[in-house]
């Protein structure tokens, strides 16, 4: 089973990278390098250390923003899910945030918070938080009534019902919100580096494009995708570790 899933993952990678290689060799566009050229550039940047320096810069708003979004997002979502008053007061904010055209709002953020870290953290949060809040509140609201009744009949107090029943019951949907939020946060981090000030990975992308070093540009984009996938896998491992029984496998198993 494990070898089969590994095989399928490798197969899908080979297909995607193969298509990339072929598209680069045709070439579809002179601005589109082959897969191998991009990997060369990636190796070069890795070994001369410039990639690590760039990530040192990019990870700051990313990690801070995602941490804030996760903690605040789950807490606010929990409140919204528990209380109708909170729902009326705060849900609209996050629905608007989710629908807002962020790129157009960045100049406003820059006016308010400058071009430093604060603005970039805001961009990450605006991208990541709404989906975390909305998923959490929906899942909390939909906790099966019989679980809460069971807790009450065995004399759970309010705190125990929230911590031992509502949150674990909501955890699959909270985690799917976190996964979507984290992916959006990665997009937000790069967006902020492209739109506010070119630093870190955003700088590599902007600079490489300006000097027509397309392999480096795609290598940087590729690296951020790899990092995001790694992070999502970590999140999934955490979820499986915390709530093992919620993982019920696939319908076809």
């Amino acid at each position: 089973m494990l070898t089969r899933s590994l095989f399928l993952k490798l197969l899908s990678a080979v297909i995607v990278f193969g298509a990339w290689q072929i598209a680069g060799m045709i070439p579809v566009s002179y601005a589109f390098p082959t897969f191998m050229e991009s990997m060369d550039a990636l190796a070069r940047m890795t070994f001369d250390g410039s990639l690590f320096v760039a990530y040192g810069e990019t990870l700051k708003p990313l990690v801070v923003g995602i941490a804030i979004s996760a903690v605040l997002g789950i807490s606010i979502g929990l409140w919204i899910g528990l209380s109708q008053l909170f729902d009326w007061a705060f849900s609209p904010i996050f629905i608007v945030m989710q629908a807002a055209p962020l790129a157009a709002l960045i100049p406003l953020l820059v006016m308010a918070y400058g071009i430093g870290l604060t603005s970039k953290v805001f961009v990450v949060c605006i991208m990541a938080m709404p989906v975390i809040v909305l998923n959490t509140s929906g899942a909390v609201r939909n906790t099966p009534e019989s679980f809460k009744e069971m807790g009450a009949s065995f004399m759970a107090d309010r705190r125990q019902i929230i911590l031992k029943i509502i949150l674990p019951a909501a955890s699959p949907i909270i985690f799917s919100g976190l996964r979507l939020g984290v992916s959006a946060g990665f997009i937000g981090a790069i967006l902020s580096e492209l739109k506010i000030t070119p630093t870190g990975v955003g700088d590599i992308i902007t600079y490489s494009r300006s000097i027509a070093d397309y392999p480096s540009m795609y290598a940087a984009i590729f690296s951020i995708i790899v990092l995001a996938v790694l992070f999502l896998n970590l999140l999934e491992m955490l979820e499986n570790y915390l709530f093992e029984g919620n993982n019920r496998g696939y319908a076809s198993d």
Partner: protein
Amino acid sequence: MAMPQTKDAPETATTEIAVSARNISKNYGDVEALRDLTLEFPRGQLTSLLGPSGCGKTTLLKIIAGLLEPTAGEVEVNGKTVTGPGPDRAFVFQDFALLPWASVLRNVAFGLELRGVAKSEREDKAAKYIADVGLAGFEASFPHELSGGMRQRVGLARALSVDAQVLLMDEPFSAVDEQTRRKFQEDLLALVQNENKTFLFVTHSIEEAVYVSDQIAILLPRPSRVSEIIRPSGFRDKGVDNIRRDPEYLDIVDQIWASLRNYVE
């Protein structure tokens, strides 16, 4: 209060009352679920609440559990008025209400966990009841890996492990298959014999009620009331295999159906 009931069979006179519901009314908005219902449950016996759907039997059970508040009237358990859920009562749910993220062991120990019992102590106790209900070896399994019947055994073990004197069972066997249900009914009879607990048992199956009960309260709807209390007496000692052939068993089943049939849509 000291006067025991006299109108039923003589044994009632000597039986202590564990739970009594007095003049219970319950309204949901304009809908009257229960009206002025009075019923007593003798200690150490199994009492069934039987009636057509919509007659308020689950409502009554949840009021006794302290999960619902009656609009009027009061419930006493061991002489104390019920104001909410308490350690003297444990509930077995129709849909099992097991936590899917928790192992069988943790599910069974959950009632004790909520009461702050130390981990090793509650797990020892849970393991004992898991073995008692016949699930030894499944401690580390998760609910979705078990069959319906096994899940309800977990629910039963959870209720037993908190060591409440009164067990409230809300149609506990209605979601399991026929063969499992028969086995459950036999096990329940043994449980009533061996554990000195009071069982309140909601069911919509006439045969099941007659098979397992010491006392059957027939509830009728519109307005909900106790229409009849039946105490099967003759076949309880004849062994689980002979009950369903006993003439008294068959007579009672027929008699109950005769009084219920007009209320079934």
